[in-house]
């Protein structure tokens, strides 16, 4: 007699048979995968493989041609990016999208938008309670900036930051929305090896500290092998492999399509 099988936990995010067509180009071809609660899930593949497109579909920026996305096992009851953000999804962008004319602090405060709700009149008149809330928000923003080592830059315009710091600011802004699932699109792009290493540590830290699930796209394969719990490999819009770093590394299709060309 065997013990009752443990119920497999429902994945946080499931992608089922997702296809995305741009004119004659099939950017995603029947892609399925599931991301488990709490894991760091990597997405690798050559340029133009469809990685960013997959993020765009998940975050409701690009409608899929077919297939569906499930959140905790159910169809997502939202179709706009702001609704998805409230559901617990946050992301960064491959081509950095900061609010350039705002200060570093205000960029994070915009991320705290959802938690700043108060009647417009109370806000305009600046009641005592309102001022206290405002101070709490600024405090929270500074904490998040400290986490990415940007607290000294809080008053600078976001546009004035160097590239690596802009990437970290975007991360702080995404964290401000208190996500459950964080999508990072090439967060280490343009960083030197030491900075990349720091970023790895930071991603692990925030995963543990905020109880996050992370999906990350990154071209640096050795880094991904160390960082990720599981990996999916895309090539020409198709998911050609999925599994632990060790398993993916030995997959002949991956070696041929991707790792092979990298060596």
């Amino acid at each position, binding site marked *: 007699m065997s013990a009752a099988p443990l119920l497999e936990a429902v994945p946080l995010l499931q992608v089922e048979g997702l296809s995305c067509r741009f004119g004659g180009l099939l950017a995603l071809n029947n892609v399925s995968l599931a991301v488990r609660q709490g894991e760091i899930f990597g997405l690798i593949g050559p340029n133009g493989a469809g990685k960013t497109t997959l993020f765009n579909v998940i975050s409701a*920026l690009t409608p899929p041609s077919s297939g569906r996305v499930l959140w905790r096992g159910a169809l997502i009851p939202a179709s*706009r990016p*702001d609704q998805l953000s409230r559901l617990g999804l946050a992301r960064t962008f491959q081509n950095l*999208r*900061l*609010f350039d*004319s705002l200060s570093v602090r205000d960029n994070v405060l915009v991320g705290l938008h959802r938690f700043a709700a108060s009647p417009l009149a109370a*806000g305009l008149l600046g009641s005592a309670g309102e001022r206290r809330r405002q101070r709490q928000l600024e405090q929270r923003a500074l904490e998040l900036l400290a986490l990415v080592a940007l607290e000294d830059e809080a008053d600078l315009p976001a546009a004035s930051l160097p590239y690596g710091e802009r990437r970290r600011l975007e991360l702080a802004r*995404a964290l401000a929305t208190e996500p459950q699932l964080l999508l990072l699109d090439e967060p280490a792009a343009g960083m030197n090896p030491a900075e990349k290493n720091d970023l790895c540590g930071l991603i692990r830290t925030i995963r543990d500290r905020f109880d996050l699930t992370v999906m990350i796209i990154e071209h640096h394969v050795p880094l991904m092998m160390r960082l990720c719990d599981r990996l999916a490999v895309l090539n020409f819009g198709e998911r050609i492999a999925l599994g632990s770093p060790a398993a993916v590394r030995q997959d002949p299709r991956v070696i041929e399509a991707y790792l092979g060309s990298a060596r």
Partner: protein
Amino acid sequence: MDAGLLEQMLIGALLALSVYLPLRCGQLSLATPGFFAIGGTVAALLSTRIPIFAGTGATSPLPALLLEMTLAGLLAGLLALAIGGTVLRLRGIYLAIATIALVEILRVITLNLSFTGGALGIFGIPQPFTTTAGYAGFTLVLLALVCWLCARLEQLRLGRAMAAIRDDELAAACVGIDTAQVKLQAFVLSALLAGLTGALAAHFLNSWNAKVGSFDASITTLAFVVFGGSRTWLGPVIGGLVLSALPELLRPVGDLRLIVFGLVILLGPVLFPQGLITPQGLQGLGHRLLGYGQQLRGYGHKLLVRVNGPRRP
């Protein structure tokens, strides 16, 4: 300064703030003169047709003016709320064209309704203030209040969300901002401000007709903001004050003034692409003043040393 000119400048500044609000979230709406015209029509009708608003004798009661301004603002705001959802789906130049069309539609409607006086408009609007200086004083207080509210707004969640949408609408949506709603709120606030300003202007001008809300006015009010800058509330205020005064100040040069006015509007954006007033510029000015202050302190110190001799340790 002539109080009448001052009043025109103040009204210009209020209208400039009305254009600024949607522009702060990147929405080029030219509907301000339309809502301004509605506000004026409401005030003109109420105060010439309804005895309690008209008052007795030459002057109408001040509470009546305040009530008219409230009603005018509310009506304009409600109209903005009703059409905003549809109109604000348009972007950039298409929104500009749609709002110009709105202003034209309102103008033609006013022109053809019998109770708005047709092309001639409404005359003999009663005066809540006996002097022009009275108007200017009241409007100055109103402008100060509106400026204060705008400055507060910029520090608040809504003001930040507006700026975020202007910088990157898609990124703003991805951090949970309901961009359509924020744009609608800015549009409604803009209409409200234009409406109540119209009510005040109708009394000041004594008569009101369809010409007030025209395509020309759309362009002029936009010029206020382009000239002054749309990054912070002070820009449109300065732009509105200066450009409303300019045609009057240039009156001595005759018809040439229209050319000079045109040149100023043309050269402003070329010389100051961000507008005259920018947050960075203000910050720079602050630093410079601080620098002068420190320099002065230095001089004072040297003077003291010279008078008292160097201090011994």
